[in-house]
């Protein structure tokens, strides 16, 4: 399939307001939560051999949390807690959260749940999503347990959307199965950017993140990184541009018959 170049699209495509707004909203970028609200149910696929999954999940969650307008002054004084649910298998493979290494003010906010089975972890996740006093919920589940099927992920999505508590579910060493997650990422570690003083040392973390399925955004690939505690995403790669173009063109094609 010949890929349409963005610049060569006919002007009519941009006159189509629906397509235009779609294109505007199509691209994911950090801080988008300020305009669109938080991403409510995200899945992050990662390997258990490194800390990329949990690292990226926390970075995404904190980015959303910071860009949301804070409701009241009480929130500043007593920030809401964060529920971190792990199955025992996930904790065995990827370790448990370590207070001294958590970013920002998270150390004092984390409540950890260690579940024996995936069923228990799903129960804990759902209870966490129903709790109005939580900022967000982080889950870590290893592999593809039978309990985590499409129905279970749909339950999580509905609970999350009903109560507005975002869920970031890290899937360690898992295959991309069926899921109703609104955004699905595949994250792997990347060589870190050079630190300022010691060129030999590892710098601030960077990840290669592929958004391979999302409801409100075009898929794409980014280099995510943390700089001074904030999430930065460097420019999308070429194939992502093509995907956006294809997606927008698809929208245009889909719209035109209805308009006629």
């Amino acid at each position: 399939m010949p890929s349409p170049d963005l610049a060569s699209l006919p002007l009519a495509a941009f006159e189509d307001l629906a397509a235009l707004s779609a294109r505007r909203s199509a691209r994911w970028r950090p801080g988008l939560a300020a305009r669109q609200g938080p991403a409510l149910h995200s899945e992050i696929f990662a390997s258990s051999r490194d800390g990329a999954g949990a690292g990226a999940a926390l970075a995404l969650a904190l980015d959303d949390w910071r860009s949301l307008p804070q409701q009241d002054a009480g929130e500043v004084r007593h920030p809401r807690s964060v529920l971190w649910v792990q199955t025992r298998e996930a904790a065995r493979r990827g370790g448990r959260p370590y207070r001294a290494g958590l970013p920002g003010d998270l150390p004092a906010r984390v409540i950890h749940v260690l579940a024996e089975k995936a069923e228990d972890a799903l129960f804990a996740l759902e209870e966490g999503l129903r709790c109005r006093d939580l900022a967000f919920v982080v889950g870590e589940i290893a592999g593809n347990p039978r309990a985590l099927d499409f129905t279970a992920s749909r339950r999580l999505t509905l609970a999350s959307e009903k109560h507005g508590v975002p869920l970031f579910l890290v899937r360690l060493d898992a295959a991309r199965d069926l899921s109703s997650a609104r955004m699905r990422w595949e994250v792997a570690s990347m060589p870190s950017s050079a630190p300022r003083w010691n060129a030999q040392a590892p710098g601030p973390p960077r990840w290669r993140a592929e958004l391979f399925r999302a409801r409100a955004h075009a898929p794409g690939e980014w280099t995510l990184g943390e700089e001074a505690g904030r999430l930065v995403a460097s420019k999308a790669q070429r194939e992502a541009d093509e995907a956006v173009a294809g997606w927008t063109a698809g929208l245009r094609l889909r719209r035109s018959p209805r308009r006629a």
Partner: protein
Amino acid sequence: MSVEVTEARPRRILSLWLPALAMDRWHLTIAERGGVPAAGPLVLIADTAHGPRIEAVDRPAAAAGARKGMMLADARALCPEIATAPADPAGDLAFLEQLALWAQRWGPWSALDAPEGLLVDVTAVAHLFGGEEALLADVHAAFAQRGLALRAAIAPTAGAAWALAHYGPERAIVEGRAGIMRVLAELPVAALRLDQDVVTVLRRLGLKRIGDIAGIGRDAIQRRFRNRKLRTANPLIRLDQLLGRVSEPLLPVIQEAVPLVQRRLLEPIRHRQLLDRVVADLARDMARELEAQGQGARRLELGLWRVDGEVVVRRLELAAATRDPAHMLRLFAARLDDVDAGFGIEMLRLRASWAEPLALDQNDIEARAESHGTSLAGCIDRLIVRLGAKAVSRPVPYASHLPERAQRWQPPLEPEPTSQGLLEFHSRPRKLLDKPEKIAVLYATPDGYPQRFRWRGEVHDVARVEGPERIAPEWWRERGAARLRDYYRIEDGQGRRYWIYRQGLIGDGRGGVPDWYLQGLYA
């Protein structure tokens, strides 16, 4: 020490002594069960390392020569037909506690005087009974009705009342503090509530009566007992307490009503649906009970009495005080799944064995849960009920430099312990493995850190390194051969960041070639 008690009107203390408490209680228990006690001599015994020892004797046994504290074998030698029953000191104490509460009919508060006495404060209440003689008569009548032997006395101090009850004349009353010495001078020194060895010492000194001690002057006794700081070992302190020169604090018994509701069922229930309904009723009753007391439950115990005599108990601990019936019901519903009803459940009882004050504000966790989500405490309760209390926790800092000791887990809603802040330049990993995992170093640089290593069956090439950060062993805690750790922060060719350490140094004399471990994963 010698605080003068300056009160215009002295207190009036009623001392009750039940000389045969254990034996009386045993007879009462037998009578309650419908049995007839044997007429022969009876002793209550306790097992000791040297065989059974007599704890209490009844009148025929005492006449036959048995005494408290004697070995049973010796008593058997005097009187072979002696009957025995086990003593129950814990039961006696519980009975005494009940008696203390019951004795509050004669005064606003009462205190235990274990093992077989009570003290009741009857200051300014005697006129309600028509004078102190009438009060004592009433007390004797009431105890006689319960079948308990009693000696009672009233005096301005607890010490004097005790002495009179134990060693004084029947129904003694001492008016005013000035009269104490006059009445008590003739009593033996044992009436001072002293240890047995002190009484022996006094007797050998020729001081047999309380009047003798008061007669020879304080200085001599002060010198003899100057090292005895304990009340029960120093006759001067006891004498001062007896005379009211030193105040003697008494610990009153206060009845605390545990919120409790129960349902007896006409027909034993065997089905879950009915059980849920009864539990819902109980939860509602409990909520009302707690509301009346202005309290919220922290621990709930649900007892299920089965027809065949089994009692099933389900306990529940709550993260925050609550009295919301729907919340209680929901938590119990998860705990009742494995109850075996057997032939049916005939009684249910719900107790809030731990309650805390709770203001009147929280009323409908469950209704709000539908619309706005649960509160944090409610959420944690639900998690704990299903997953167990250990599964839900939060990390708190602990004063240690060893990474795995520097973090502890505690229940989620407890306040965080104070701690020293972290140093900015100490970089710590985001996640720590449960146990440091050994890595096989395939090739090390001359600087000492590994260039290539194998972890969990995969080879990593180290691209960037920072370190070492040296953490010495905690010599005050660990054994002497513990080795230090050199931590390195590394990144491999694919950008995976780890925290590894070498345990020990080459040639530190604490073992062979040091091992390498991987402990943490950086983001």
